[in-house]
């Protein structure tokens, strides 16, 4: 079963269109959702959560249409949104009281252990929290009602590298259960490289690719060569070119490229940069 399935999802704004988005996240997997600011990541996540109306297409969460989805399914979803959070006057003890009355599956012990793991001060109210602490609080809330699917919008941004590592560990524990899945958007591609099975790349409202991480590293590579060498290569294999004083770097489809070339592995960040900046064909 798919934890998440988007088919031809479209949303039109005056200055931006989310164009025929197709995403499939199999149960038990983590998908990273990358793209530059304004590419449509948050819009996609809002559509999934039915916070905004879609203009076309279908969305299924845990096998059910996301608009018809009942409260039982919502119990199984943990969400961390980029900006949205709690009343600024509340502290996390009060928040736990509220959540206990919202989620049937709320687990106080689980919440407490996460909160102390993230070292959140019970005396502080949300107003006094830093952005990172708010994120940690949201993550603790999202996990404390034992969800099956986590949907995270920029959940690790604003956190220092050590805190990010802690949280990635928490996600890693979570995904050990085969029924659990995570869909996370992020700018921090190194985080995604650490834990994701799938990478989906969105650019200007369109999905550029949706690959497993292994496929990605097998498909793309960075070729370093001279202009003459580049001219000899089949143009269809070149996805992007970057010229500098020392020669040419090109993002290439490495498995199709025959010949004696030096091809480095391409990181997600490099692939993104080539696609966005270096006139991709």
């Amino acid at each position, binding site marked *: 079963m798919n934890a998440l399935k988007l088919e031809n999802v479209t949303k039109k704004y005056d200055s931006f269109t989310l164009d025929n988005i197709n995403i499939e996240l199999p149960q038990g997997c983590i998908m990273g959702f990358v793209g530059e600011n304004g590419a449509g990541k948050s819009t996609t996540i809002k559509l999934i959560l039915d916070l905004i109306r879609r203009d076309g297409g279908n969305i299924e969460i845990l096998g059910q249409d996301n608009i018809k989805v009942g409260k039982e399914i919502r119990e199984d979803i943990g969400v961390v949104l980029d900006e949205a959070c709690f*009343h600024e006057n509340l502290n996390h003890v009060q928040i736990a009281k509220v959540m206990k009355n919202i989620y049937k599956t709320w687990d106080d012990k689980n919440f407490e252990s996460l909160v102390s793991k993230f070292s959140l001060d019970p005396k502080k109210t949300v107003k006094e929290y830093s952005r990172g602490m708010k994120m940690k609080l949201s993550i603790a809330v999202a996990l404390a009602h034992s969800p099956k699917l986590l949907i995270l919008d920029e959940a690790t941004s604003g956190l220092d590298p050590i805190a990010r590592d802690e949280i990635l560990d928490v996600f890693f524990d979570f995904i050990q259960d085969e029924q659990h899945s995570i869909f996370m958007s992020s700018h921090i591609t190194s985080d995604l490289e650490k834990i994701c099975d799938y990478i989906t790349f969105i650019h200007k409202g369109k999905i550029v690719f949706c690959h497993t991480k292994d496929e990605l590293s097998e498909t793309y590579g960075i070729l370093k060569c001279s202009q003459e060498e580049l001219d000899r290569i089949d143009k269809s294999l070149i996805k992007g070119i970057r010229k500098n004083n020392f020669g040419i770097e090109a993002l290439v489809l490495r498995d199709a490229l025959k010949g004696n070339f030096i091809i480095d592995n391409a990181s997600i960040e490099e692939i993104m940069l080539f696609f966005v900046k270096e006139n991709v064909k």
Partner: protein
Amino acid sequence: MKGLILKDLMGLKKFSKNYLIFILFYAVIGLFSNMYALFSGFIMVFAFMLPITAVSFDERSKWDSYALTMPISRKDIVLSRYLLGLIFAGAAVVICFVYTLITSGENFGTSLLLSGAFFLVGMLFFSIIFPILLKVGVEKGRLTMIIIFLLPTVIIMTLSKIGFDFSKPSEQTLMTIAWIAPFVVIAIFVASIFLSFRIYSKKEM
């Protein structure tokens, strides 16, 4: 639903402390100056302002879009806010009634009528304002709110300026109004809830 109400009550706790001093101040003034209606009016305004303040807190923290990812429907959110209004107004009515009974020297019936009248006026304002606030947000809705508060005064003043006769209505007219008013206000309140459902169900978060 219970969770939502709990969140609002806890969120307002800190905020209310400052207002409690105001309330006490007005209570004392009313006591000495024999203007018990002033206190009743004030506490009723306060009671209906609190849920609006709660909405402004929610807006600031973008709580609504977060809450809607939980097992909470859009109807739950709207209803919880009307319910919060009723809870505060209910408490205010009790305070008004006891206060009027003690300080004014009026009898039981008159005190009840007086607090009841304040309650109905408060409910009426709330019913009109709330759908507007849901539509445009508390920040943008502030001006509309003030206009709606001032509108009756302005209308009455203008009418009397142009020579409209505001002589005291007869006892019987007053009694008829007293009987009809609760039903009219309740009807408007219910209509307001349904209007808010409609507005909120279409709102993009």
